[in-house]
């Protein structure tokens, strides 16, 4: 086990010129020993590249990878002692399940009795004990992926275990089970786990710390609550949550925030930052938009364009000027009809403000504290 420090950039091209040539823009990141991390982002955002850089399957074109302070950039995956589980199950077809699990240990020359004990323990954790003597080739996809997971977890001394969307091929009801299993294993074995996924639910439930990535950039590292409450970048607000954050173009005018033709008063603590910014974007999650009277002061006037029943809540879409605003409403509240004029309150302790570079500049009522932590 090890603490992993990255300070690197990577391009698959021999001579990168501009930002878009990079699979991974220059970044600095640390993974603490024994932590459970998730790399979250859409396809092609560089998360798999980042994972392969950590494991040593790919060498960074610039910078270094350090394990416990030692530079391992030039070392192979074996030398780094990394375990990695891939998106699609990789099993050695001609071997039994037990031989598959023992393979990484045998290659490292462990004594047979220790291999046996370790394989038995991992098989038990993953509920593979009953199938140990079957041939791996004949199992279903989820059992095969469990073998892949098992081969990743079987070595006790690994620096870290990396997962590259390992639950893609698994049935939804088994996904929950396996994710819980992984979390439990993390508690038992105290391994450093890094988990790549494009599924926010998966990332937020699995990891202590989630790294949100887009276009080769890591835009925020934080806990599930931090990512939800205070997205540091508009992409995080947009990507996390279902549906994502509402973004409304806004500007500072005559001591108040002007949004969609309405001037809204804000907390005194925000005045300095917002008046200095001039033009900015207001972000508010659908969960935090509340209905008000259309004539109420401090509320946007909007026309309801769509109302959807999503089972546990109603999703209301309304047009305020040019912008669309979504709101999650509890089924208990009175649901307006399509075409009705409603008032929407978008300012509150959860509201965030973003500057021209899409970075968070202020939020809620305590902007100074938040800016310091960013």
């Amino acid at each position, binding site marked *: 086990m090890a603490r992993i420090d990255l300070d690197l950039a990577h391009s698959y091209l021999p001579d990168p010129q501009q930002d878009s040539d990079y699979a991974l823009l220059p970044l600095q990141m640390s993974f603490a020993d024994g932590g459970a991390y998730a790399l979250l982002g859409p396809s092609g955002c560089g998360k798999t590249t980042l994972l392969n850089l950590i494991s040593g*399957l790919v060498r960074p074109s610039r910078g270094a990878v350090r394990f416990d302070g030692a530079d391992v950039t030039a070392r192979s*995956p074996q030398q780094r002692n*990394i375990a990695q589980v891939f*998106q699609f199950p990789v099993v050695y*077809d001609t071997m039994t399940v037990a031989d598959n699990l023992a393979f990484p240990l045998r*290659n490292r020359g462990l004594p047979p009795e220790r291999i046996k004990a370790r394989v038995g323990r991992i098989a038990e954790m993953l509920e593979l004990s009953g199938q140990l003597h*079957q041939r791996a080739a*004949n199992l279903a996809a989820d059992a095969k992926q469990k073998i892949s997971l098992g081969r990743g977890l079987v070595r006790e001394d690994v620096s870290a275990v990396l997962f590259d969307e390992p639950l893609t091929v698994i049935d939804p009801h088994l996904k929950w089970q396996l994710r819980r299993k992984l979390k439990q294993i993390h508690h038992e074995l105290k391994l450093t786990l890094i988990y790549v996924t494009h599924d926010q639910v998966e990332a937020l439930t699995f990891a202590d710390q989630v790294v949100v990535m887009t276009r080769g950039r890591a835009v925020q590292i934080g806990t599930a609550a931090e990512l939800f409450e205070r997205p540091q970048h508009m992409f995080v607000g947009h990507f996390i949550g279902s549906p994502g954050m509402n973004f409304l173009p806004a500007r500072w005018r005559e001591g108040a925030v002007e949004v969609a033709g309405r001037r809204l008063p804000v907390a005194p603590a925000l005045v300095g930052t917002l008046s200095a910014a001039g033009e900015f974007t207001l972000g508010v999650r659908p969960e935090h938009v509340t209905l008000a009277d259309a004539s109420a002061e401090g509320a946007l006037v909007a026309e309801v364009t769509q109302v959807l029943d999503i089972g546990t809540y109603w999703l209301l879409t309304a047009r305020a000027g040019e912008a669309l605003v979504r709101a999650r409403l509890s089924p208990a509240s009175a649901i307006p009809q399509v075409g009705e004029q409603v008032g929407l309150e978008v300012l509150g302790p959860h509201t965030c403000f973003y500057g021209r570079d899409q970075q968070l500049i202020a939020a809620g009522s305590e902007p100074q504290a938040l800016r310091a932590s960013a």
Partner: protein
Amino acid sequence: MKPINQKAWWLVLPVVICVAFSAVLPLMTVVNYSVQDIISPERRVFVGTEWFAAVMRDEELHAALWRQLTFSLAVLAVEIPLGIALALSMPARGWQASLVLVLVALSLLIPWNVVGTIWQIYGRADIGLLGAALAWLGVDYSYTGDATDAWITVLAMDVWHWTPLVALLCYAGLRSIPDAYYQAARIDGASRFAVFRYIQLPKLRGVLMIAVLLRFMDSFMIYTEPFVLTGGGPGNATTFLSQYLTQKAVGQFDLGPAAAFSLIYFLIILLLCFILYNWMQRVGTADREGAGHE
């Protein structure tokens, strides 16, 4: 009960007619010959299984059959490992891959009789590169005089001609293995040999089965190359089954025995391929069935 629609037979009919004219009717002619003694176009006598019995007792035929089996097994023993080794050493991508593919496939484009002619000249001690080089090295080599030399030359010719086929099949098989397998092997700390033994070889099973069957059937019917090179000699050293058959049918006009033998030949190939196919299938599925009953 399911309704039965007999109209579907009409859809099969064109194929049935084609196969009847291309395969079944010629085969029946052979069957016809094999049970009759044809003395002249007007006079023929039904002889029953007499030709079959005669052919089965034919010492020369037994010798040719053993020669043939040894040859085919030698072909497999050399071409399959060599083909795999060749495929493993071929570049995976880039212009080098295209170039190597074309070079490897070249020998497959050459007709059988030309291959025979090439090697006939190549092996001559006076003007052939191989023959002259061997003579210069002091090796007493002559495919026309020495039975072993002739046999080895025919084998070398077949290896030269057909190993690329095995190599190309294996190459295609190797390229279809996802990268994740190699990455996983690196992560698991597998040696180069372990990668071959546990990833590449198992994944090649399908194409290897095709390669073994193709090469076995093909080499079992070898005719043109030894015919051009040695005419079956010296002695009977390179008289393989089809050569022997041709001598019977065309050389001596013993149509009855030749036809009877053709049928036996056909059955031998069918039987051997059946056994080979089942055996290779079994290698892959034996444990599967075992696992299913646990």
